[in-house]
């Protein structure tokens, strides 16, 4: 346990030093790259909670990511234009308001989708979550007020009292702070009473029912928590990139999140972050070398699946000599 905390602290410090390192080496785009990877890591980790720990394979997780992002975008749009959302809610650019709003909105959407989808299981669950995500996607594409397919530009990152959010390093540290907090939250969550129940449900739903656990309610609660996490990640992403678009909730984005989780290691805390970082770095690096970057990415992904079980985390453990 102690060793794990030490490792986390070292990783956190290294990540916190990224802006300085980027400054020193002149490769300042690393700030944006690592920041984005952290946010995707959060989204993937939120998915991993239901997918890896809860056994619910959701193929529509990007919807909650996108909804979280759109809440920030829409509130900014109304703030900028001085209009009211739905005729009575004023816009805002205060992060202390937009982030909670995004989390709540994504949670509500997850409650709706989860309540209906969790009546099925297996392949049907995969497909019905995908279906709901597609419906959200088409809904946001036809919202003319919010830019339709083009999305919403957020000219200024939301402000946080006392911080200069225009500074790239500051924004990065805010993101890192959220990512770290979310990681710790998830660690607590999977070790909590609820986390144990969810782990039990993944392994054997029938057994849990025989313990008097109404599995549907617990799964729904997990689904909502997970959706809220994705909403937070989406809200941060829009702040980070200053842009919200329906691409955020396209089905291929849901697929990408799944790829990150599987690549990193299903049902591990650090896996999704590692998977996000690896996929993101890989894509970015290869895209600079060749226009046909998809081919090597595809081949590498395929090799990872075929040759290893448990993704990069398992590989890392194997290399480190099975310390855990």
């Amino acid at each position: 346990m102690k060793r794990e905390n030490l490792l986390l602290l070292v990783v956190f410090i290294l990540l916190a030093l990224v802006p300085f390192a980027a400054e020193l080496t002149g490769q300042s785009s690393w700030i944006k790259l690592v920041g984005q990877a952290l946010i995707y890591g959060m989204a993937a980790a939120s998915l991993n909670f239901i997918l890896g720990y809860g056994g619910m394979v959701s193929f529509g997780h990007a919807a909650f990511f996108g909804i979280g992002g759109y809440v920030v975008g829409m509130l900014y749009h109304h703030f900028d234009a001085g209009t009211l959302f739905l005729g009575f809610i004023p816009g805002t650019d205060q992060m202390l308001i937009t982030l909670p709003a995004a989390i709540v909105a994504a949670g509500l959407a997850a409650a709706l989708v989860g309540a209906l989808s969790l009546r099925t299981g297996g392949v049907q669950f995969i497909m019905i979550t995908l279906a709901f995500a597609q419906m959200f996607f088409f809904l946001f594409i036809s919202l003319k007020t919010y830019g339709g397919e083009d999305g919403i530009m957020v000219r200024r990152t939301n402000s946080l009292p006392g911080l200069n959010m225009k500074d790239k390093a500051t924004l990065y540290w805010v993101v890192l702070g959220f990512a770290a907090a979310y990681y710790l939250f998830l660690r607590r969550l999977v070790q909590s009473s609820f986390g144990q129940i969810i782990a039990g449900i993944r392994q054997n739903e029938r057994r849990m029912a025989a313990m008097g656990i109404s599995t549907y309610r617990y799964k729904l609660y997990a689904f909502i928590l997970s959706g809220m996490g994705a909403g937070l990640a989406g809200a941060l992403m829009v702040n980070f990139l200053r842009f919200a678009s329906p691409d955020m909730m396209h089905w291929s984005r849901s697929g990408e999140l799944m790829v990150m989780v599987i690549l990193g290691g299903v049902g591990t805390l650090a896996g999704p972050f590692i998977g996000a970082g690896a996929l993101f770095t890989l894509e970015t690096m290869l895209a600079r070398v060749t226009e046909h970057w998809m081919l090597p990415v595809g081949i590498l992904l395929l090799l990872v699946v075929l040759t290893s079980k448990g993704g990069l985390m398992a590989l890392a453990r194997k290399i480190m000599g099975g310390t855990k």
Partner: protein
Amino acid sequence: MILLFEQLLNGLQYGVTLFLLAAGLTLIFGIMGVINLAHGALYMVGAFAASWVAIQTGSFWGGLLTGLVASGIAGIVVELGVMRRLYARDHLDQVLATFALILIFNQTTVLIFGRQPLFTSTPEVLSGSIEILPGLPYPTYRLFVIAVGLAVAIGLYFLINKTRVGMLVRAGASNRQMVRALGVNIQGLYTAVFGLGALLAGLAGVMASPIVSVQVGMGDEIILATFVVVVIGGVGSVKGAFVAAIALGMFDTMLRAFLPATLQQVMPGPEAQALGVGISSMGIYLMMALVLLVRPRGLFAGRG
């Protein structure tokens, strides 16, 4: 009235195309338990191979044959090289591996054929229209697509219900363990089923190539609708896939055709149009959600 009839035909034609794709996918799903996101890539392979040969030789029929052979071979290669290692894995690994296959297929196609869409046209005998009702000319080629689709459906019915291979396929779709227990060459059966599924997907691609744009990524768009068909029909059921494909084709076409105009009766034109199209785009997903809420395993679910 004529318009309605024509739209029904359009729905039927879309439906049989979906069926060609869904039949293979549902069998692969049902028998091997594999979620194959890359099924649409085989559709693309069929379309590209057929179009390329048609351009080189000027013969649609030569292209048809090449498309079938190419997609069938591609399917068998994929089965032997990749799928075989995925049967014992969980759905997640299958999703990741077949997602990777999509990337590989798409980019390889770009490398071979470039990014420009390929040109194909309908064969001479099938160009033009037939006046099926007074005042209703209907493209001959589309009638041909419907005929081919229905013929394949009938062929599959006989294959599955009247032959020994079909018996194994049916048994495998409802109970995988049982086929293993029968001591059949299960690997051979798997390869054959996968090859057949790929062939049908390729056929759908060939059939679609004179109608739609033959371009990279064309399979990614239609694969979602195909999955919807498979799930609505019930995983593993070819009959379910047929019913669901036709129903979905009709439903989708009817929504697109009549919903905006219907909405215009109750709201201003432009908004009605936008809303109507928005809802029609969601239509198939809505249909799937509704079906699954009533029948969580689809319409014709097997026990497996």
